[in-house]
C-alpha cells in the first residue's frame, strides 16, 4: 500500500469502527460465529451484525443508480446507425408490440463518440460518465418480461413482477448484515417522494423488517428532515447522556437478577447504539463537512447532493444504497424525448462521474458494485399519439422490455467491456441475452453468493432472489 492508500484504508476503518456497536472482541466473535455459513445465521439480538458470504466475492457494497421510468438505450449507450438510415421509415420485419403503438424508426437526436481504450460508444448525454469507459462493464443485451412500469420495477428490484418478494437490497443486507450498525444497512434515496410501486421497490417481503430499505427523501437538506427520530428536542446532549446513564444503570441492576438472558443485554446495548447513531447519522448525511472542491465536483443540485450522501454512506460501511432519480417515473420520455433526456442526463451525468472519481480516489471502487439502469429501455421507433397522453406529439419513445442497456462498475466486474447486442435497430436483445434474473444471479455471485443456494424458508418453501431462474453471466466477472 502507498501511504495514501494506507491513509484511505485506515480512515475507512476508523469510520466503520466508530460505528461498531460492540467492542472489538464481540465483533471478532460474531464474525467467527457466522463464518462461511451457506445460509446466513441471523442472531435476532444483532440482526445486522456483519456476516461473510459463503463464496469469495469482491463486492462488499452496492450503489444502484436507478434511472426510473426507462432511459433510452439507443440515445445513451447503444448507438444504432441503422436508425439514421431508416429515420421516418417503417422498420423491416415484424412489428414488435410494446405498451403503446409506435410508428417509424426514430433516430437519436444525440451525437455519439468513442471513449477510452475500449472505444466504448456513448452519446453526448453521458459524456462525463463516458470518461470512465474503461471502468464500465456495459450490458447491451438486457431483457425484461413486459413493457409496463409496475411489473418491471418489481422484477428489477425483487426478481418477481407481481407478488410480494424481498428486494435485492434486502437480500444483500440479510446475507451480509452491515459494517456499521449505527446506520441502517440498506438506505434508499429518492428525492421528492416515491417512485411508482412506492416502498414495494425496497420491501423486505418475508424477510424480517430490519432488512427493509430505509427511505430517505433526499430533496430535504437537514438531518432532522432526512431521518426520523434522529434528534431530541427536549434534552441537550449532556442531559440526554446523563439520562441514558441512569437507564443503563437500572437495566444493569435488573439484569443482574436475571442472569444469562441475552435479550435483556441486547436491548440495553441498543440504547447506547441509538445514542451514537444520532451523531453518526447526522455526520453521514451532512455533506457540508465535505471540502468545497468535493461538493463542487458533485454539484450543488439534488442529484449531486444525494450522490455525495451515497458515497459518505458507503464509506461508513452501509451495505446497499439505492439512488432513484426522483418521484414517479422521471425517465419516462413518451414525448419530448430530446428535451427530457437531455435534462435528466444533465442532472445525473456529473454526479455519476463524480461518484466514480471519488470511489476510485478513496480506493472504494474495487469493493463497491455500482449499477446504472432503468426498469427497461425505450423503443427505437417513435411513439404514436394517444388522446390524452402525449398531446399529439410525435417525438418520444415507448417502453421497451425486449432490449435495453445497463452498466456496472467496480466490485469485481470486468472493466472496459461490452456484453451482448441488440438487433441492428436496438429493438431486441439478440446476442448473449441477459435476463434480469441472470443479472441478479451474477450480482449475487459478485457479492459472494450462489444464487441457487442463497435461500430463505417461507411458507414451506425455500425462496431465492432468482426464483427458479437465472444463470450467472461469467463474462461480466473480472
Amino acid at each position: 500500500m502507498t501511504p495514501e492508500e494506507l491513509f484511505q484504508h485506515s480512515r475507512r476503518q476508523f469510520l466503520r469502527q466508530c460505528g461498531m456497536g460492540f467492542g472489538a472482541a464481540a465483533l471478532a466473535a460474531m464474525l467467527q460465529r457466522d463464518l462461511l455459513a451457506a445460509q446466513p445465521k441471523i442472531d435476532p439480538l444483532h440482526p445486522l451484525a456483519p456476516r461473510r458470504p459463503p463464496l469469495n466475492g469482491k463486492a462488499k457494497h452496492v450503489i444502484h443508480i436507478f434511472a426510473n421510468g426507462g432511459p433510452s438505450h439507443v440515445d445513451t449507450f447503444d448507438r444504432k446507425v441503422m436508425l439514421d438510415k431508416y429515420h421516418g421509415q417503417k422498420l423491416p420485419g415484424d412489428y414488435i408490440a410494446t405498451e403503446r403503438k409506435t410508428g417509424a424508426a426514430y433516430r437519436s437526436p444525440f451525437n455519439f463518440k468513442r471513449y477510452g481504450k475500449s472505444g466504448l460508444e456513448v452519446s453526448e448525454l453521458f459524456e462525463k460518465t463516458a470518461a470512465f469507459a474503461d471502468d464500465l462493464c456495459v450490458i447491451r443485451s438486457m431483457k425484461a418480461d413486459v413493457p409496463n412500469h409496475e411489473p418491471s420495477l418489481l422484477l428489477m428490484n425483487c426478481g418477481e413482477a407481481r407478488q410480494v418478494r424481498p428486494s435485492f437490497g434486502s437480500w444483500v443486507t440479510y446475507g451480509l448484515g452491515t459494517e456499521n450498525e449505527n446506520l441502517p444497512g440498506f438506505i434508499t434515496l429518492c428525492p421528492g417522494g416515491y417512485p411508482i410501486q412506492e416502498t414495494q421497490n425496497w420491501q423486505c417481503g418475508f424477510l424480517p423488517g430490519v432488512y427493509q430499505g430505509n427511505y430517505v427523501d433526499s430533496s430535504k437538506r437537514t438531518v432532522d428532515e432526512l431521518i426520523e427520530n434522529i434528534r431530541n428536542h427536549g434534552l441537550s446532549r449532556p442531559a440526554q447522556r446523563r439520562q441514558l446513564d441512569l437507564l443503563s444503570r437500572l437495566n444493569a441492576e435488573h439484569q443482574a437478577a436475571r442472569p444469562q438472558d441475552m435479550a435483556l443485554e441486547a436491548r440495553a446495548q441498543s440504547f447506547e447504539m441509538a445514542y451514537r447513531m444520532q451523531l453518526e447519522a447526522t455526520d453521514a448525511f451532512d455533506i457540508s463537512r465535505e471540502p468545497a472542491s468535493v461538493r463542487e465536483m458533485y454539484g450543488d443540485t439534488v442529484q449531486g447532493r444525494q450522490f455525495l450522501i451515497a458515497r459518505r454512506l458507503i464509506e461508513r460501511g452501509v451495505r446497499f444504497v439505492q439512488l432513484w432519480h426522483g418521484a414517479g417515473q422521471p425517465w419516462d420520455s413518451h414525448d419530448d424525448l430530446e428535451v427530457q433526456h437531455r435534462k435528466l442526463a444533465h442532472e445525473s451525468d456529473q454526479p455519476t462521474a463524480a461518484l466514480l472519481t471519488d470511489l476510485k480516489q478513496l480506493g472504494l471502487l474495487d469493493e463497491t458494485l455500482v449499477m446504472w439502469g432503468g426498469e427497461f429501455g425505450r423503443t427505437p421507433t417513435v411513439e404514436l399519439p394517444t388522446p390524452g397522453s402525449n398531446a399529439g406529439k410525435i417525438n418520444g419513445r415507448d417502453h421497451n422490455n425486449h432490449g435495453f442497456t445497463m452498466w456496472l462498475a467496480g466490485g469485481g466486474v470486468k472493466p472496459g467491456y461490452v456484453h451482448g447486442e441488440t438487433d441492428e435497430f436496438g429493438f431486441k436483445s439478440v446476442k448473449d441475452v441477459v435476463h434480469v434474473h441472470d443479472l441478479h444471479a451474477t450480482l449475487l455471485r459478485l457479492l459472494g453468493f450462489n444464487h441457487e443456494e442463497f435461500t430463505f424458508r417461507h411458507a414451506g418453501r425455500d425462496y431465492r432472489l432468482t426464483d427458479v431462474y437465472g444463470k450467472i453471466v461469467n463474462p461480466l466477472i473480472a
Partner: protein
Amino acid sequence: MWSRLGIFFSFTLTLTGLAEGPVPTAAQLEFFEKEVRPVLVENCYKCHGEKKQKASLRLDARDFVLKGDEVGEVVVPGHPEASRLIKAINHVKAKDVEPMPGEDDKLSPRAIAAITEWVKQGLPWPAEAAPVAHDPLQHWAFQPVKAPALPEVKAKERVKTSLDYFVLAQLEHEGLSLSPEVPKEVLAKRLYLTLWGVSPTDEEIQAFVHDTSPQATEKLVDQLLANPAFGERWGRHWLDVARYADTKGYVFEEERRYAYAYTYRDWVVAAFNRDLPYDQFLRLQIAADRLVTGEDNHDLAALGFLTLGRRFLNNQQDIIDDRMDVVMRGTQALTMGCARCHDHKFDPIPTTDYYSLYAVFNSSEEPKEKPLLKPFTPTKDSQEFDQELARLEAKASEMVKARYEGSFSLEKTTAYLTILNRSFLEKGLNVDLETKRQALYPPVYHGWEKALSTHLKPNDAVGAFWWQLREVPEVQFAVKAKELLANPVGLDPVLLENLKAKPLLKFSDVLAAYAQTLVNARGKSEVAPQKIWASFWSAEGGPLSPKPESLIASYSVSDVQGYRKLVREAEAYKATSPKSPPRAMVMQDKPNPVNGTVFLRGNAGRPGKSVPRQYLAILSSTPRQPFQHGSGRLDLANAIADKNNPLTARVMVNRAWSQVFGQPLVETPSDFGVRTPAPRNPALLDHLASDFMNQGWSMKKLIRTMVLSATFRQSAAITNVNKDPDNSLLSHMNRRRLDFEAMRDSMLRLSDRLEFKTGGQPFDLIGDFTNSRRTVYGFIDRQNLPSVFRTFDFANPDYHVPKRNQTTTPQQALWMINHPFVRSLSDSLAQRFAKLPTAEQQVTSLYRKLLGRNPTAQELKLAVDFLREEALLPVPSTWQNGVGGWNAVTKQVSFTPMKVNLKGRLTPTDQFPDPFYGHAMLTSAGGHPGNHETEAVIRRWNASAAVTVKIEGDLHVPSKVSQGVRARIVSSVHGLLGEWTVLGGETKSVTLASVALAPQEVIDFILDDWKGPNSDGFTWSPVIKDAKTGEVVSSAAGEFGQVSQVQTPLSALAQVLLECNEFNFAD
C-alpha cells in the same frame, strides 16, 4: 367414517399399476446399461430424477417413464416417432414439446440414436427394486387426533391443570422438574399481558396480591377473559394469521382503502369475546354467505378473512392464490403455493388439488354492493351519508351519461360517418385505432357500421347518393353532385331536403347532410317521415345499443382519469366518512360454478386436465366426493371444521400455545407438512387438541387451561442450560418482551391515557400516536407500512404471518429516546407528580405508577441524584417564529410569536393575508415578510449553552419582480451581527464564521421587505454549527414547527422508567 385407506397419489406410486413390458433379453439389457442408462444419468436425472421432477417427470425407473409428465405420456413403447421424449431430445418444434436437455445442450447423435432404439425396443429395463417413495400418510400430523392417557408423574402436588402432567412427565424423564411458582406480582403482569396485552396498573396488582382466597388466580383469569380487552388482544393474534390491513396495496389509480375492512377486524375481536366455537369461527370466515340466515347478518363480516388481502393490480390468479394461502396455511398449516406450478415436492399436494381449490374460489365473487350489517336502524348520520354518497356517485354516472350522449352530436356523428366512409376506401384501415385517435368510441362506430352498411349500395333510397359520390375526385365533385341532385330518382325525401340545404362542394358536405338527417331523426316516431332514419338509431346492434358504461373502456386517457377520480372520491367517502354505515366485505357463489383446470407450470395460457371442485385427497375420506354446494366454499369450510380433520385443532392449539408460552410446540405454526418434525411433546399437543374439540372448540377454555397451569406459573429464571438449553421442555417460563401493541398500549395505560372503547373505523396511528385508542384499531396501510411498524416487528400485512420476528435494533431505541410519543407520556406523568412536595415522593410515585412497586433504597438515591444533576445540565436550544423587527434607535427587537400553523405554514393570525401583517409567514424553507420593516418575519433561536458557533445559510429571492429583501442577524447580547440585502432573482450566502455565545443568548434572524413587500417570497433557513467540530448544533428547517419544549428532569426520569427493561419485559 374418516378413512384414509386407498388414498392414492400419483407420486406415492407403488409402481405396480402400469404396463409391464416383455421380459428383456440379455442383449437388450446390455445395450440399456452401456448406451442408455449413462445418457439418462448424465443428462436427465438432474431435473427428472429422485430429487427433482421438473414438469412432474421422473426418468429413473421404467414405470416412472411410462407414467409421463404433467401433460401426459412421454413415450409410446415401440414407437419413437410418436413419443414426445424423442421429439424433445431431437429439439423438434411442436406443441407440448420442450427441447431437452436444453436449447444449447443437445445430446450427441449417438445418444439420441441410443434412446430412440431403446424406445423402439419397448424400454427394456432390468428388474430392480423400485425407488421407494416416501409415504406421507405416515406423517405424524396426518394421524387422527387421539386423546392420550395422562402420564404418571412424581411431583403430583405441582399439577394445576391437565397439561402439567405432560410437561412434568418429560421434565422428570430428564431428571428435571418445573421451576418454582412466581410471586403474585409477577403472575399478575404475566396474566394481564397474555390475556389483555397490557400491563396491569399498580392498583390491579395490589388487588390481586391482597386477594388471599384460594381461587384468587381463577377469579382474576375469569375476570380478564370476560373483559372485551381479551378479544382485542387475541383477535389481533388472529389478524396476523389473516394478513389484516385496511388497504389493498398497489392498485394504480383506484381508491386504496378498504372502506369496511374494520368490520372484519371487529367481528374477529367480538368472536373471541363471545367465545364463538373455533369450528364455527372458521366456517363463518370461509362461507358465512351460505350460513347466515335471519334478520341479524353480522356474521357476514367474517368473510373479510378471504377478501381483504392484497389486490396485486387486480390479477385474479394472484388474488385467488393469496386467498387459498390464507385459508390453507391459516387453518391447516399446509402450504399450497408450490402446487400452483408443480406437484408439491414433499407434501402430498398435487397440482390437481391446487386447482380443485382454485376452482372453489374461482366460482366465488365479490358483489359490487356490499351488504349492510343488520340490524341497522337508519340515523340522521346514515341518511346524510346516503345523500352525500348518492351525490358523489351521481357525479360519476352523470359523466358516463354525458360522454354517451355527447357521442351522438351532429359533429360526432359526422366524424363517425367519415371513418365509416374511409373504411370503404382505405384498405387495411384500423378503424378501432382511428376511432380512438379521434377520441371517438369504437362501440358507437360499430353501431353505425351495422346500421348503415347494408344501405350503402347503388340503388338504395338512403345510401345511393353516398355510394355514387364517394369516389368522385374533388375537382369534379360540385358538378357531379349537382347532376345527381337534379335527378334524385328514388332518393329518400328527407335526406334530399338536407342535401339541398347547403352547397355540396366536397364529399364531406354530403356526409354532413347525412349526419344532419340522422341527428334530426333521432327518437322520431315510427310514422314520421324520418321513420327509416329513426330506425337506424334503434336498430339492434346500432349506435345506441352500447350501454353508457361500456364506453368507459374506450375513453381517452384524460377521460378515464377523470372518471376514475370521481369513482375514487365516492370510494374514499365510504372509507373515511365517520357516518358511513358498516358493511360486510362478503364473497358469494357465482350463479354457475366452474370446474378447475390445471394450469401447466402455473401458466394460465397452458391449460391441462380438468378437475372437480373437491378437497385435498390427503384430507378426504374415500371415495372422495366432489363438493356439492354452489362454489364449494361451504363444503370446504365443513371439511376444515370437521372433528376428524387431523390438522385443524392441532394447528390452533399450537398457535394459542405459542402466544401463551412464548414458543410454539411445533416450530413452524403454519407448516405441518411432512418435513416438519413432530413436536418435542406430541402427547401434549394431542391432549390439548382433543380436549379443545371435546370442550366445544372453546378458545376461552383452552386458554384458561394454559394460563392456570403450573407450567405457566413457574419462574422465568434460566436454570437448566445444560439439560434444557433451548427450553423446549419448559423447565422454566419464557421471559417475554412486550410486542409493538403491548408496548404502546401499556405505555398509554400506565400514563392513564388509554381508553377502552371497542370497534369502529380505524384511527390514524401515525398522525396521532398518542391517540387514546388501542393499537389494534390503528390504520394499517399494507402498501407503505410506516416504518415504526417494521421497526417493532409488527406482522407484515402482505402475508399470513405465523410467528412475528423479534429483533433488537438501535432504531427501536432511537424511537424510544426521541419520538414525541414517549416524551408526551413522560411529560404528563411528570406534570402530575411534580406537585408532590419531595423528590423522594415524586420518584416513589413514578415507580409505583409505572413499575407497580416501590424503588429500592439504592434506586431512590440514584433517581433523586439524577433529578438534581439533570437540572444543572444545559438545556437544548430552541426556535421560535414570529413577526416584528429591529429598531435601529433602541437596538431592540420587537417580537410577536406566530400562532397559526396551517399545513406547515406559520402565520401571525388565522387570516392570510392579514390586514395588518400582510403576507407575513414562515415555512421550514423560507417565507414572506410583512408590509413594513416593523412586520419583518423573525426566526428566534435561544442558544441555551455557551458555545462558539458558525452560522450558515443561503438567502434566495426567486421572483425577479421583487425589489429585494433585507436580512439581519441580531444577538440579545452583542446587538446587530450582520446585515445583508438580496435583490429579486438573486442568491446570497448569509454566514457568520464565528460567534461566541453566552448561555441563554438569543439570536434573531430577521427578514424584512426592505424597499417594498411585492413578490418578496424567499428561501432562507439558517443552520447553526459548532465552530470547532462542524457538528450541527441546530437547524431552523429541521426543527421548524416543533414546539421546542425543554424536558424537565422529572419527565426525563419518567421516560427512563418507560424505556427500561423492567417495563418492557414480563418475567
